[in-house]
Every structure is written in structure tokens, then in C-alpha cells.
């Protein structure tokens, strides 16, 4: 009951891996994943088989990717992205049918997520992203003349090892896609919280472009299997890891020197509303925007807001604005129901609501359950939300006061949604950027970063590659 992921015995299990080089010679065991205890076959990998697999993957990568242009790769990726987005495709259906039980998200949330995330995997979006960072795609295909003289070519890692986290379905696919774009074969280690999307992506890619799909391997092992990770890291040219600070810290220590490491740890978001925007015409849209930012992926993402700072003195008070947000959260809880809750998650919200109430806050909340909560108070500190649609509204005298509170969050600050005049926005953007924020967006768009965003402030592709300069 308390352990979501235990052993199971069920022959109708899903295949929780994509290991084409080991087809037919793989030992597996069944294991239950997610709040629905979905049975899934996972490989029993020994350090020896893993090393062989990775060596083979690198060989395949060299052979296949050297013969492909980036454009060809993008086209194959786009074909799968189209299927994921299309509600008439079996792949889309399978994801909508399986991911809710595996992740706890509602079917509606998964469907919205598939549509929005696959927008970033179209050939156009990927091409524009690559061009934005490299100037032109050709530098990944052949040596190109440099303006400063000589030639250069960008090479992706001979192998990228990805350690995924389970909070947002689709992030794993984006990670694999980016590596393919720079012609790096990839091994993806899935998370217990979302063990399936990357597998489905690779399998679908094989139906369209079998050769390219052989440049991917996806598998699961329990977190902290350091013997397997040691093999994976020693074979890798780059390691990309998503997860808690603790797990990122642990992985960072174990990646050998010389292997590129990109860690994506815990991050949080906030929102700022200037008093000038709080007039009665605009607030309805803004309240709906905040509600959407809270609803999307139930605040599990690093881009989701935890606290909304509202500047006093507008036509609409912080409390009235909070009431509007509450109304939208209530409506949205029917359109996009919140995901399944563990007893701990529900309990935390009930406890936090009471704590805030006794402290003097106004608590607007669903009853009797915890579907949504809006906590309004005159308090400056940034408190992390217990997530699952709990938003804290804080009235401040000036938005500058909020900046001081956000400075404490510092480099953990990911996305800040802002409603302000152009002039205020310019000032706030400078200050937030200096504090550590990596993304500033209009209210309502927090959950859906542009395909070209600098995730955690970094390049999407450029950080993966190595340049070779040719001087003549």
C-alpha cells in the first residue's frame, strides 16, 4: 500500500525497455509502477551486459549517425512527434491510456501535455533551435568555414547517458531528441515515476526509421544502482541528469573527469503582478492565467509557480484577485482534473491549510478534498508550495519587496510569470535575471516553455557538443 513500486506477477505486463541490440537474449522481471501498480517487464542488467550494450550502441551510433544529415534525423523525429500529437494515432492512444496509471496525472492532463510538448519535436522547431545556437545546421554535418578563418565542425558525444526524473512526462523524450539532433547515440535510464514515454518514443521511431532507433537504448533500474551507473558513466561522453538536488549531487560525484556532466536539479517558480495590471478589465484573464500555471502538471514542474506576489494599490485587491483565481481553479478542476494523490500528499495539504489559517491567512479551498487551495496573506517570505494545486498569494507594498524575498531563492529560481507595464517589466527582468531566474514569461504561460528556451539557463544543443577546428 505504501510502496508504490513492488514486485508483481502478471503476464500482461508492458515492456518497460528499448534495447534492440539485446532482442531475444534479455532476462526480465516484472515490477509494478505508479499509483495503479501497472505491471511492467524490466530488464535484469548485469554490469557486464550493460557494458556490452553500451559499446554496441556507440558502434551503431558511429555507423548510422555519420551517414545521416541533421535534416534527415529531424524528419524522422517529426514523424513520431506527429503521431504523439495526433488523437487519431495508436501511439497517442497508448500514451493516454498508460501514462495516467503510471504517473498519477489525469488523462486530460496527459492529453494536453502530449499536444504541447510534441510541438517542440517538430522538424521546424528543432531546426530553428539548432540554427539559433549554431547559426546553421551544416556545422553538424561537415566542416564549415569560419568567418575568422579556418574551419570548424561540431560533434555530439560518442554516447550520451541520460538519467531521467519522473515528474513531467515528455522531458525524457526531449532529452533523447536533443542528443539525436547533435548525432549522439543515447542510453536513457528511466525513473520509477515515469518509466514508459521514452520507451514508446524509441519503439515508434523504429517503425519509421529502424536504423535511427538503434541509436537509442532505454531501460530502467532502481535509483542508486551505483554498479550499473559506474559502467554507464565510464562509457559516456556526456551525462545528463534530472532529479532532486541530492541525486544530482550524488551523480555529479560519480561522473569521471573528462565526461561532460549536465545536471538539472530542483527549481521553483513564482509570479509577480504589478498594481497597474490589477484593474477590473484585465484581472479575469490574469486570474485564469495563474490558475492554468498552477493546474498544468499539478505544479510538479520546475517552471510552476509556488507564490504569487500581488502589489497593493490596484483597483482589485489581492483578496479579490485570489477569489478569482479560486473560481478558475474550481472550473479547471473539472476540465483538467488533478492527478491521483498519495495519503501523504493529501495530508500535507490539509495540514498546511490549517497552519496558514491559524497564522491568520485567508484560505480559499476546495471541500472536502484538496483539489485546489489558494492561501492569501500579508507575508513576504517565499515558502515552497506542497504542490498539487496549492498557490500562495502574498500582498506586497511594492514588487521590489518581492524581489528581496525571491533573492533568497536565488539560483533555484526557474520561471517567473509577470504581469506589469513594459517599463516595469524591463526593470524587473534585469533584477530577476541578476538574482538567478532563468525564464520570465507572461502570466498563463509558465507551464509551456518555448521549444527554444534555455532550460536552467543553458543551451539546448551547444552544451552537448565539442567543436573540432581545422586550420589550413
Amino acid at each position, binding site marked *: *500500500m*505504501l510502496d*508504490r513500486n513492488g514486485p508483481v506477477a502478471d503476464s500482461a505486463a508492458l515492456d518497460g525497455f528499448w534495447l534492440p541490440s539485446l532482442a531475444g537474449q534479455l532476462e526480465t522481471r516484472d515490477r509494478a509502477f505508479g499509483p495503479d501498480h501497472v505491471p511492467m517487464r524490466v530488464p535484469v542488467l548485469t554490469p557486464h551486459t550493460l557494458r556490452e550494450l553500451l559499446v554496441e550502441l556507440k558502434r551503431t551510433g558511429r555507423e548510422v549517425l555519420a551517414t545521416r544529415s541533421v535534416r534527415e534525423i529531424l524528419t524522422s523525429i517529426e514523424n513520431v512527434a506527429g503521431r504523439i500529437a495526433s488523437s487519431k494515432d495508436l501511439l497517442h492512444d497508448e500514451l493516454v491510456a498508460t501514462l495516467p496509471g503510471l504517473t*498519477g496525472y489525469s488523462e486530460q492532463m496527459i492529453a494536453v501535455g502530449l499536444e504541447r510538448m510534441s510541438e517542440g519535436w517538430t522538424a521546424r522547431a528543432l531546426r530553428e533551435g539548432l540554427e539559433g545556437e549554431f547559426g546553421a545546421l551544416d556545422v553538424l554535418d561537415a566542416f564549415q568555414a569560419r568567418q575568422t578563418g579556418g574551419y570548424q565542425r561540431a560533434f555530439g558525444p560518442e554516447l550520451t547517458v541520460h538519467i531521467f526524473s*519522473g*515528474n513531467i512526462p515528455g522531458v525524457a523524450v526531449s532529452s533523447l531528441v536533443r542528443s539525436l539532433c547533435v548525432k549522439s547515440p543515447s542510453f536513457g535510464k528511466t525513473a520509477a*515515476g515515469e518509466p514508459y514515454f521514452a520507451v514508446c518514443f524509441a519503439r515508434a521511431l523504429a517503425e519509421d526509421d529502424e536504423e535511427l532507433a538503434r541509436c537509442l537504448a532505454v531501460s530502467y533500474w532502481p535509483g542508486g544502482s551505483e554498479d550499473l551507473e559506474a559502467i554507464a558513466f565510464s562509457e559516456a561522453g556526456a551525462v545528463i541528469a534530472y532529479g*532532486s*538536488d*541530492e541525486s544530482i549531487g550524488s551523480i555529479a560525484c560519480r561522473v569521471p573527469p573528462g565526461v561532460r556532466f549536465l545536471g538539472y536539479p*530542483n*527549481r*521553483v517558480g513564482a509570479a509577480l503582478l504589478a498594481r497597474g495590471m490589477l484593474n477590473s478589465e484585465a484581472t479575469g484573464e490574469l486570474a485564469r492565467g495563474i490558475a492554468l500555471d498552477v493546474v498544468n502538471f499539478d*505544479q*510538479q*514542474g*520546475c517552471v*510552476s509557480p*509556488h507564490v504569487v506576489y500581488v502589489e497593493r494599490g490596484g483597483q482589485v485587491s489581492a483578496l479579490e484577485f485570489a477569489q478569482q483565481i479560486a473560481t478558475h481553479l474550481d472550473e479547471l478542476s473539472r476540465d483538467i482534473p488533478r492527478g491521483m*494523490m*498519495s*495519503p*501523504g*500528499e*493529501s*495530508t*500535507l495539504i*490539509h*495540514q*498546511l*491549510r*490549517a*497552519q496558514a*489559517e*491559524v*497564522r491568520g491567512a485567508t484560505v480559499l479551498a476546495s471541500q*472536502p*478534498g*484538496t483539489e485546489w487551495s489558494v492561501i492569501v496573506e500579508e507575508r513576504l*517570505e*517565499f*515558502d*515552497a*508550495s*506542497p*504542490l498539487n494545486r496549492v498557490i500562495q498569494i502574498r500582498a506586497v507594498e511594492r514588487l521590489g519587496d518581492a524581489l528581496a524575498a525571491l533573492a*533568497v*531563492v536565488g539560483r*533555484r529560481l526557474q520561471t517567473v510569470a509577470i504581469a506589469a507595464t513594459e517599463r516595469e517589466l524591463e526593470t524587473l527582468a534585469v533584477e530577476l535575471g541578476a538574482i538567478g531566474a532563468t525564464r520570465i514569461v507572461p502570466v498563463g504561460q509558465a507551464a509551456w516553455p518555448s521549444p527554444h528556451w534555455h532550460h536552467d539557463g543553458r543551451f539546448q544543443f551547444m552544451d552537448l557538443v565539442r567543436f573540432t577546428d581545422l586550420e589550413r
Partner: protein
Amino acid sequence: MEGYEQLRLEIETLIGRPIRPPIEDDKFQQLALSVFRHQFENNLPYRRYCERRDRTPDSVQRWRDIPAVPTAAFKEAALICGDPAEAEIVFRTSGTSQGPERRGQHYVRDLRLYETSALKNFQAHVLPDGARLRAIILALPDRLAPDSSLTWMLEKVRVHFGAAGSDYFVDQAGLRLVPLLAELAASETGERPLVLLGTAAAFLHLLEALKQRNRRFSLPAGSRLMETGGFKGQGRAIPRDEFYEMLGVHLGLSQFYCVAEYGMTEMCSQFYDNVLRERALGRSPEQRYKVVPPWVQTQVVDAETLEVLPAGQVGVLRHFDLANLDSVMAIQTDDLGIAGADGFEILGRATGSELRGCSIAMDQWLTAQR
């Protein structure tokens, strides 16, 4: 005030009755509704909490409908009847990572009911045979932990039930292993049984030291142990069964003589395992569960809707403790449990490890920054 004193005496009388059979629901109802009226009238933050829920002594007819306050509320307000400055003592939850400003505080106006409840329940479940034993205490003494309710209780137990030579074996530096081992060795050769009292974490520490030294004691027959709390702060946690097995191997204690206590800072009453009390009645209980004393009612509620669950379903524990006369009787915990025919089993905290999301460690981290 006369009515108050009478109410207090009635509760004290109830606590004085045998642990079983349980009290008739009518009697509990009558006392609980009186306590609710008293708390509604005198405990201002609690009154506001009830009023926001439209629950008043006039509208509430059944004890089950009395609003239960989540324990986290004790972090923010002095939930006491009357002036907080008049509290005889303020118990605080242990600091952990939350920092001093976030500790739960239980203002206790009058320690008499607390003491009566604690001693009666301890005696019934740890000393059901009326034994008077030397107490070996594996917890901080009260001068080192003046606001710990556990320490306060253990000191009362030592004074009331401990034979000569009862002592504490933990200080700021941790377990005082050398004198403790000497004490255990001396007891082994004598015939006077011991009662070991303390935190599960301290006992685990002792067991690991004994394992390392390959030392096994065989304590005199009738020796027993009461442990409480989780394995917080300990490098590892082990399943309860394994823990009791190790106690058997290294101290020679039968599982029937290992009693787990479950208490909380916010409550004047505690819960104990049934095993030793039943053993004293000549039974060999097959199931270990927590006994609800007659002056307490415990419900298991759905974590999401807070609706009462039938026996056998896992939910969150909610207690109604008449001994909390001057603070809040109805407490919504964050402990997971499952109700049985005659008590409940506790399954651990309902918060923490299973949380998902990008910000699991954030609150802790942010608090550390302040």
C-alpha cells in the same frame, strides 16, 4: 469555574477506571461535548477555527462532529484555554530541520490530567503485573530537554514507578554506552528485572553497538522495554519485526515484553501496544496493536476527504483526547494508521518520502537559509 473543576474531576475519575472495557459512547459523548464547550468558550484561536466551519457547541451534537485541528496549527498559535502566559509548561516538538520558529508548541495549563493519564496508561501497558523495576532510560534527562513531553513523561514514570538506581543513559553527546553496558552486565547476574525506556533510535544504536561487540545479554525474567518514536536521525531504519528480533537476540527480551509507545507533543495521552498487558492476563496475543484508553477516541479518516473510514482501511489518525482539557481535544494527525476491532495499528508518517515533484527538498532548504 465550578463547572470546570467538576469536569476535570469527572475526566480524572474516568482515567482512574480500568483500561477495559471501553467506556460507553454516551458517557464519552457527554464529557466530550462539555470539553468542546469549554474549549470553544476559552480557547480563542480554536474558537475561530470552529466558527469558520460553522461548528459551535450549539450546533455540534455528537463528539464525532467536533472540529479536529491539524497538528501543524500548533506551530502557529498558542492553542490554550485562557492566557498562554498562564501555562504551567510549553512542550515543543523536536527541532529537526524545520528551524526553531516552526516547532509545534503545546501549551499545558495544568499538568495534573497529563500526569494522571500518562502514569495510568503506562502502568496498564508496561507494568500490568504491578512490578516495581529499576528504569534504564535511553532518552535525554529533563535538565537537558526541558521542553520535551517525552522526557517529562519518562521523568514522571521514573519518580513514580522506578526502583532505586533508576537512571538516564543519554546526554548531549549521545548514548552513554560504557556505563550502560556495565549496568546491563551487572543486571544480568542479578535477579532484579529491568525496565528499559527510550527512543527506538537510541535502542537501535545500542543494538548496533552490541552486534559489533558480538555481545548478548540475557536480562532477568520479567525485564521489559518500552520504545517510542521512529528511527529519526539514525543512519538507517529497520522493520519493526527485525528490531524486536534483535532485542530478543541481544537483550534476551521476548517480543511480548517489548512495548511500543506512540505519543505526540500535542496530546496529553499516549497509546501503547497491547502485548504485555495481554500477556499479564495470560494470553499470547497474535496481533500487536495500539490500545485506545477509555478517555480517548481514535478515528481513521480518509487522507483526501477526511471522512471516517471503516476498520481495515488505511487512513490518517484523528484523536479525541479528554485529557487535553485545556488545549484542543480533537487532533488531526499526519500519522497513517489502520483501525482494528480493539485499537489501531500505526504505519508511519503520511508526509515526506512519497512526495513527487521538483521542489521536494525546497522547503527544508529555504528554511535553512533564514
